[in-house]
């Protein structure tokens, strides 16, 4: 054995280096944990969370034209769009829109398919539920968007 590795071993240089690393990490600024309900994480803009149906901000009407492209694009066939033709305007109008988020994998293909930028994946991530009943979300829920849980204590 050559002399340098032997001295390394005798004086436990590597072990002391390790101690130095852990000692440095004690500084409070190194802490990585988030105090979750108090501090909310910064979500990336392109994060794919709960799908949302956008409305026209001026009129409050939905942007959906009931073209059914999203339902066709969905690989799991989770989207059901129902529509009827308005006899006055001769346009198709969406009557109901449901999405089963319990099976959704947030691939974003529906949002890509949407021709009017109505369906979009929001940054909302808080949709855990106590039973399976609420996982099929409807148009009203998707237009309301993010509903973060409020903790009082």
């Amino acid at each position: 054995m050559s002399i340098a590795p032997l001295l390394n071993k005798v004086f436990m240089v590597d072990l002391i280096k390790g101690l130095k690393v852990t000692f440095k990490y004690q500084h409070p600024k190194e802490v990585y944990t988030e105090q979750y309900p108090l501090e909310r994480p910064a979500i990336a803009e392109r994060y794919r969370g709960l799908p949302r149906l956008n409305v026209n901000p001026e009129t409050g009407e939905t942007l959906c034209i009931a073209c059914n492209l999203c339902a066709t694009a969905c690989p799991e066939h989770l989207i059901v769009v129902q529509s009827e033709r308005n006899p006055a305007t001769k346009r198709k109008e969406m009557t109901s829109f449901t999405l089963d988020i319990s099976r959704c994998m947030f691939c974003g293909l529906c949002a890509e398919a949407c021709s009017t930028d109505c369906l979009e994946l929001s940054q909302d991530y808080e949709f855990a539920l106590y039973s399976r009943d609420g996982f099929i979300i409807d148009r009203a829920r998707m237009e309301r968007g993010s509903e973060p849980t409020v903790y009082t204590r």
Partner: protein
Amino acid sequence: MLDYVTSYLHSSLTPGQAGNWLWALVYILVIFAGVSGIVIVMNWGERKALAHMQVRLGPMRVGPHGLMQPIADAIKLLTKEDIMPSEADKPIFWLAPVWVVMIAFSVFIVVPFGPTHAVTDMNIGILFMLGVSSLGVLGIVMAGWASNSHFPLMGALRSSAQMVSYEIAMGLAVVSAIVMTGLGGIGPYGIGSGAGSGTLSMIGIVQAQAQQHVWFIFKFFPVGLVAFFIFAVAMIAETNRAPFDLPEAESELVAGFHTEYSGLRWSLFMLGEYAGMVAVSSIAITLWLGGWLRPFPSTHGPAINIPFLWEHPEQGVVDFAFSFAPALVMLALAFFSFFNAMRMPKHPLLKIQTIGLYAFGLVLAGVGLILLAPPVRDRIQDIFWFVFKIACFMYLYIWYRATWPRYRFDQLMKVGWKVLLPLGLGVLLVTGIIGLGPEIAAWLKGVV
């Protein structure tokens, strides 16, 4: 009766030596409470320091910065279901945790927190400590055997092999320190200026360090340091702590010897483990780090008599400066908690916690101010330095655990038998040769 109580106050002996059972009982209760207090603080401190080293936060919810976490843990453990496996050997299963705690606490009989602050002083003190503390392994083996399960048995087997191997190296290191008490020279390299006290008593060992004006870690540098290093490694192995925690290796043996234990019995094992850590640390402190002596004890002069310091203000400015250390440490801790209280996020839900942290800081500052008062300041010196050194050792235990991975069993045996044992023999030999240097030189002269 009153005479009996007050008569001890004027004696300069430990209650055991003075034959005063009442004060001995008081000392036992105080030491029991104190060690349990250290275990409680350690419970919080370990989780917190370990968490910060792993860039986590650790307990934060029960009290400010999780300060009440040990209490919550205690309530949880006490109210948990007490499970005893149906195929277990019931009397032994019951006895094992009791045994571990009993052994861990009975070694504190001879631990000297100050020249008079021990339950008793035996003339075979260090031998008693080593003998009794090595009985602790019996509790672990009993737990492993009585559980009637594979993982505990494996843990107990590993534990017994490990303890037997490391006890030898530990003993050799201790003998080298005891030999040093018999060499009377002054200073790190003082040789042959009269024989020393040559004692096995815990108080005697510290007094020998005071008389020789050197902590034994610096005696015959680096011989004392190497002996201390051997002991420091062996003591981690003896207490089954990382990186030598094979008997309770989580990733291999679930929880090792206490896999089948839960609730109160499990907490007794934890209490025993932490009390054992304090016990072996206090052996190391007594033998090498000057026990209750403060740093640079040699500036005292030969008449070292710390507990009655306030009667001798002429003893110098260094003593005066060091006498502020306990108060300064408490005030620093108080400042630390005020600082953290100010850094707390301003959130209505955290208001009570912030107030609690301010109150905790106030309590610490109050204790610090009490420690500033001259009579308290001088009387607390020796106890403070001993506890301060214990705290340093406890921090080192956490630091090691956070840093180093567990040794493999063959590596453990290799370190014990092929490194520490020869090293210990060498240190003992070198200590003897240096200590008997003048005699050997004289003999050689006679031969030549």
